[in-house]
């Protein structure tokens, strides 16, 4: 058996095997379980399509299906509308507010959409601040938050950074000569955009848009808090929690959610395959930029500030709510107090420590597994290594609700030895769920980091006597450190605000993380102030983490670049 692997491959093979087991046990098996139950007759256990027939012939579920689709699509549209001017400003002009826009792009990501939902209702609801003012001054109201609109509004504000990043990157990847040659032949303005810039930016955009689509489609927390139940994810949650873990509809919905997620991923892949239009050539990439005239500058800043206000509104609303005493049918709270924060710190520190623990562990596992997979895929010739990549990335297609349901179903009768508790209600299962859910992102970061490390650096080390293992530890991992850290922080930040799977898997209050705590606190008839305070703390916490990680990455990149410059200078 040992001879089947080249020297230096045994380690990776073992690691690969362990990872494969992990993925199989905690991703493949639960999802397969869910799919099987959906196709089983609940009475007899025989295979059947009857559950799907029931689903598609029930008007409630038909409605939920259409609604989920509609909301996800419209969220993409609205998010794009918000992102387009910002992408345009940063790629087309020498706009001094570019840093501002970058920050804009991060702000929404540090607050979970469902926390924002509550604040948005107070600001933009039928009798919220904005509408009260509109009604008073102009005599009309805008149904920002009516029905599905509310979900779309909250989701697009939260997810537009994905679109912005992808759009900006796609635009920046277009070689300048593409535009210049078109201008040389007579094209300009809108025609130039439509015929050249847009088609070349499309693939990158579609990749981002497809991702936003799935995320909105699968989101459980936001519709739940906005009291919208006729959508797929809330229905699955409600069926399982109200009717029971054997209700077939919950599983049918899970299958549909997964199918659609896979479809979106496939579309995204298709868009990028063979159409990678990035051609970086002499003279620099990116579209031509020009300076702004003064009135144009004012216009740009006006748009940016408007979008900034919009993007900050959930945060503002949350702040107001956390400091407000009573906020009812009025533009602003009646009075302000610190009391809610006091309540939170005395009663809710457990949520915070739990989050630190769970998200920290999950992120740690993610980067370890991510680095291992990246190395195995790119540096070894082990058979079947591509499947590790696919397997880990497949988690993207599994919504949190489905993971939750799958784990509950698969592990509720599985008793953990020593602790003598079902695995499904042990807090570690939450860490596992977070790890699996965030792994695809960490993996991409690790892969990108690894691809920047030239293989010759490893070969030089091996030439000088280091084994594979020592090389990885002393050369590869340190050189990847920036990317690994980026992966860790992203995993951490997103894991600490995950709600969908958490909602299903939290068994006892004392095991609950931050997001769950916020959800709980927000259900108090004596006021949501403490919930909002907890939300603010969570946001600050994630925001600070993100900020510091950026600083670290910038510093490591700068140090890498300066050595590169020195090296160049030495040979010039």
């Amino acid at each position: 058996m040992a001879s089947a692997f080249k020297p230096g491959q045994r380690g990776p093979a073992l690691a690969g095997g362990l990872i494969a087991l992990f993925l199989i046990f905690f991703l493949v098996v639960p999802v397969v379980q869910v799919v099987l139950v959906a196709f089983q007759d609940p009475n007899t256990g025989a295979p059947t399509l009857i559950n799907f027939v029931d689903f598609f012939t029930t008007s409630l579920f038909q409605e939920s299906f259409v609604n989920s689709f509609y909301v996800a699509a419209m969220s993409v549209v609205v998010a794009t509308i918000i992102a387009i001017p910002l992408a345009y400003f940063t790629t087309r002009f020498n706009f001094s507010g570019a840093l501002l826009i970058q920050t804009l792009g991060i702000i929404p990501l540090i607050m979970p959409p469902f926390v924002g939902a509550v604040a948005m209702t107070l600001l933009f609801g039928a009798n919220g601040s904005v509408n009260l003012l509109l009604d008073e001054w102009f005599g009309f109201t805008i149904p920002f938050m009516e029905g599905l609109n509310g979900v779309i509004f909250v989701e697009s504000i939260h997810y537009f950074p994905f679109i912005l990043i992808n759009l900006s990157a796609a635009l920046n990847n277009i070689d300048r000569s593409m535009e210049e040659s078109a201008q040389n032949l007579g094209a300009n303005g809108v025609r130039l955009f439509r015929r050249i810039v847009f088609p070349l930016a499309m693939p990158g955009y579609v990749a981002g848009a497809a991702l936003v689509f799935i995320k909105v489609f699968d989101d459980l927390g936001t519709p739940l808090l906005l009291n919208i139940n006729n959508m797929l994810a809330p229905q699955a949650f409600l069926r399982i929690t109200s009717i029971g873990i054997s209700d077939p509809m919950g599983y049918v919905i899970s299958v549909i959610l997964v199918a659609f997620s896979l479809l979106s991923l496939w579309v995204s892949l298709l868009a990028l395959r063979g159409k990678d239009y990035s051609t970086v050539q002499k003279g620099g990439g990116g579209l031509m930029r020009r300076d702004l005239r003064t009135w144009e500058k004012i216009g740009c800043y006006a748009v940016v500030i408007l979008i900034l206000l919009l993007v900050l509104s959930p945060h503002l609303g949350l702040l107001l709510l956390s400091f407000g005493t009573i906020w009812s049918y009025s533009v602003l709270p009646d009075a302000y107090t610190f009391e809610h924060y006091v309540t939170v710190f005395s009663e809710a520190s457990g949520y915070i420590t739990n989050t630190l623990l769970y998200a920290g562990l999950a992120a740690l596992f993610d980067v370890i597994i991510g680095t291992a997979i990246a190395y195995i895929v790119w540096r070894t010739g082990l058979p079947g290594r591509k499947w590790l990549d696919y397997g880990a990335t497949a988690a993207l297609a599994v919504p949190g609700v489905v993971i939750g349901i799958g784990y509950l179903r698969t592990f509720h009768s599985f008793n953990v030895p020593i602790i003598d508790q079902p695995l499904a209600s042990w807090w570690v299962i939450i860490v596992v769920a977070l790890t699996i859910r965030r792994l695809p992102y960490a993996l991409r970061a690790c892969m990108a980091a690894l691809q920047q490390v030239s293989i010759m650096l490893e070969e030089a080390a091996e030439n000088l006597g280091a084994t594979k293992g020592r090389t990885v530890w002393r050369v590869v991992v340190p050189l990847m450190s920036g990317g690994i850290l980026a992966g860790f922080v992203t995993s951490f930040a997103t894991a600490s605000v995950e709600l969908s799977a958490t909602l299903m898997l939290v068994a006892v209050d004392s095991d609950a993380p931050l997001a769950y705590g916020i959800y709980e606190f927000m259900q108090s008839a004596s006021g949501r102030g403490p919930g909002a305070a907890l939300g603010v703390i969570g946001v600050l916490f994630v925001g600070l983490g993100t900020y510091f990680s950026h600083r670290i990455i910038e510093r490591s990149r700068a140090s890498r670049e300066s050595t590169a410059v020195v090296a160049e200078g030495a040979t010039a």
Partner: protein
Amino acid sequence: MTSTDTTTAGVDIESLNLSFDDTHVLKGIDLSIEPGEFFAFLGPSGSGKSTLLRAIAGFGPTPTGRILIGGEEIAHLPPWKRNVGMVFQSYALWPHMTVRKNVAFGLEERKVPTREIATRVDAALEMVGLLDLADRRPAQLSGGQQQRIALARTIVVEPRVLLLDEPLSNLDANLRVQMRRELRELQQKLQLTTIFVTHDQEEANTTSDRMAVLNDGVIQQVGTPMELYDNPANLFVATFLGTANVLSGVVEDADGGAQFNAVDGAQIPVDSAERGSRNLMFRPQNVVIAAADTCADADGVRLTGTVRHVEFLGSIIRYGVTIGADTVLVDDRHQQGAPVFAPDSQVSLLLPRDQLMVLES
């Protein structure tokens, strides 16, 4: 106003200055290109030749000065209104369009009727010999094919001037030679004023009617290739175009004429009105190498020296001969069986007087 005149035109540039932020890149360019001329901008990298070309096309910072095409001022026009066709170094074919659509682009922008577009596109592709590739995508073409398509795309709109930005530098050596000949033929057929940017003097020499040598944003000299080669205006042009022997020294009066007193001690009579510190330049192929005791004839000058190294270059034997402190290169045509001077042997170098050039630094 858009220029709609499509007959080929001359290009006049007057007092053109251009800066990138604080760096002054083009300094006082004055140039006149005749209609139908194949004109080259030649220079080392950083000389500003591409910048000048792009300024004519309308790309980059706005320059001061005037640019006239066929007598019309165009410096204030945006690129899409200038009707000057440009072929980019990277060809810039749009990957999401077929060859045909790429070539048709300019015509569509000019609102040419569809029927006519089809005919003209086919004609242009025919002209570059690639009609059968009309439905392929750029990614499926070779470098040479892409370059021809880029060319077709530009000439199909019948621009008044054709601008080529280092069009051959991305091709391999043999292809380059073939392509430059084809370019020249095409240009002559179309009688199209063409400006061609290159850093390769061989390309410039073989294709252009006239050329401008640029260095550090300043035009050093304008003329036909042979003119520039034989009568360089300054040391830069002399050494940039071909190999040159340069001796520094002083030109002083001597017996009714002038004499160049080289630093190393050689004294060479010259025909020059200039006086003072100068350089004396002569080409290796104009020097005759002979046995040490050979005399010069009436129009010649004789220098004596020692052979330092001998390089066999195939059709030429290149000698490096030390004269005093200088080393002079001599190119001697190689004939099978002819004697070759060995290193350390004493030789006479015979320079014809009219091949000596006195240049400022």
